[in-house]
């Protein structure tokens, strides 16, 4: 049985189509990265899987059951948005509170130790740094020993060492058999963690494939040149050799040719822009 199953799901907010006939299946023990720009529909999808909303049409299943039923969610862990921690509560109190919902929670002390928060147990969450809040958020998603974890932008705004430490924790959880569905707009993060990548934009799934496959699809080059009129042109092309050959053969006048590998961000941007239907919302 799939850990997460989304079948033909459409969700609108007023006139805005946040998800447009989306289907996605995540098997047990998979680590899937969901990529997309802001407003692509990632958070809406997570809110459906975590039972916060219901789809307008289509079916959402978590561990084979309806996530709107609280009993289904005993297998689910997820991160709150960083800004959403109750500011006046102490770190330990928040973890105890979340853990209390699960049959066999990780002891709070042990969990705080694992996430390097042991010394901060008595601090109010409002006084934590951004990195500490992120670590707490991920710790909260794992306290219930869930079999499925949804991580929404788990390391946004973290420095390199903070990010690596969190990645290790996520890998460790996954190595223990846990299913992970994480969203990010950092390709680097998805590249570091995920085996499978789902690219989503304008409420549609643009790509759903292994990491290698998606990376090769976005393996484009950037060619810049100045044309006869003196205007600087920029092209993102999959095969720069062929492009230059065609350019020369066509006899077009140009100068200052420059070729370099596109950054992952650019490549991803190209994938998203080129495949999105014109005029779609979000």
């Amino acid at each position, binding site marked *: 049985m799939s850990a997460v199953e989304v079948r033909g799901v459409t969700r609108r907010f007023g006139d805005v189509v946040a998800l447009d006939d989306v289907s996605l299946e995540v098997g047990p023990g998979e680590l899937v990265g969901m990529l997309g720009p802001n407003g692509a529909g990632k*958070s809406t999808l997570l809110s459906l899987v975590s039972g916060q909303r219901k789809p307008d049409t289509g079916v959402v299943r978590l561990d084979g059951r309806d996530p709107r039923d609280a009993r289904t969610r005993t297998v689910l862990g997820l991160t709150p948005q960083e800004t959403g921690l109750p500011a006046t*509560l102490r770190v330990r109190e928040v973890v105890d509170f979340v853990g209390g919902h699960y049959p066999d929670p990780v002891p709070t002390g042990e969990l705080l130790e694992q996430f390097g928060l042991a010394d901060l147990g008595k601090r109010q969450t409002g006084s934590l740094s951004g990195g500490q809040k992120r670590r707490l958020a991920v710790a909260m998603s794992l306290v219930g020993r869930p079999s499925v974890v949804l991580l929404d932008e788990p390391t946004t705004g973290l420095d390199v060492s903070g990010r690596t430490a969190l990645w290790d924790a996520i890998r460790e959880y996954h190595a223990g058999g846990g299913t992970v569905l994480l969203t990010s707009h950092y390709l680097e993060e998805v590249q570091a963690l995920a085996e499978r990548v789902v690219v989503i934009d304008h409420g549609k799934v643009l790509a759903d494939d292994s990491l290698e496959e998606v990376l090769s699809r976005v393996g484009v080059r950037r060619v810049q040149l100045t044309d006869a009129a003196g205007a600087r042109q920029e092209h993102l092309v999959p095969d720069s050799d062929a492009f230059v050959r065609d350019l020369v053969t066509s006899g077009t006048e140009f100068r200052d040719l420059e070729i370099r590998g596109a950054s992952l961000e650019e490549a991803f941007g190209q994938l998203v822009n080129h495949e999105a239907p014109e005029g779609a919302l979000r």
Partner: protein
Amino acid sequence: MSATTQTQPFLALSWLHLKYQFLETVRVPISVIGNVLFPSLSMFFFVVPQTEVAGNPEWATTAVAGLGLFAVCSASLFTYGLGVAEDRQLPFYPFLRSLPAGPGPQMVARVLNGGIFSLFGLLPLILIGWLFTAATVTIGQLLAGIGTILAVSVPFVLLGMAIGYALSAKAALPVVQVILFPLAFAGGLFLPPQMFPGWLDAISQATPTRAGRDLLVQATTGAEAYTLALPVLAGWTLLFIALAVRSYRTDEGRRFR
């Protein structure tokens, strides 16, 4: 397939949410202080200076009961109507709703938490009544009064939740005010209903505030409540339970991406 198919026991979850909400409330001391001050100040301004009322044991006790109930109604409607509406706008709220617990424990905890802070508000009121007026109760009547006022607060907490889950914070505030003051007045919390003309008294007896007030007065002074007081209160409670559950269910949280 996972081994667990049940959430934690209802009572355990309610206790968990009660602890959480109590801590959240108590860490913002101004909300607690406001709750404690308001009924006491009303007592000093409106009851203590009127020697006619303050000097008459039955009237003074009735006045304490009326103001106490007003304080509890107001705290319930504001804390829940406004508090829930505000909570729903916090980014932590969607996370809370995705934890493995249904709406029940959270609602039970809210009701109990409201009760606890209402009690904090009643304590000084009872002290003032005791020290500065002729109000008098036996220990038995005092305990019965406190029990009654907490029970009577339940429908108002539920009404508050129905409003809070249905409206935004901006809309909840005026709605609560529009509901609270007419209800309090018609229910005889400010002026004794003995002063009402017949038609107003008839309307008054159908309100949850009047039913609650008379039950409370009966508990503290022994003056019999009208026969329909209990059924009226129970009827409103059932209606407000239905409304609160409906609001909660239809609430899909604020729109976010």
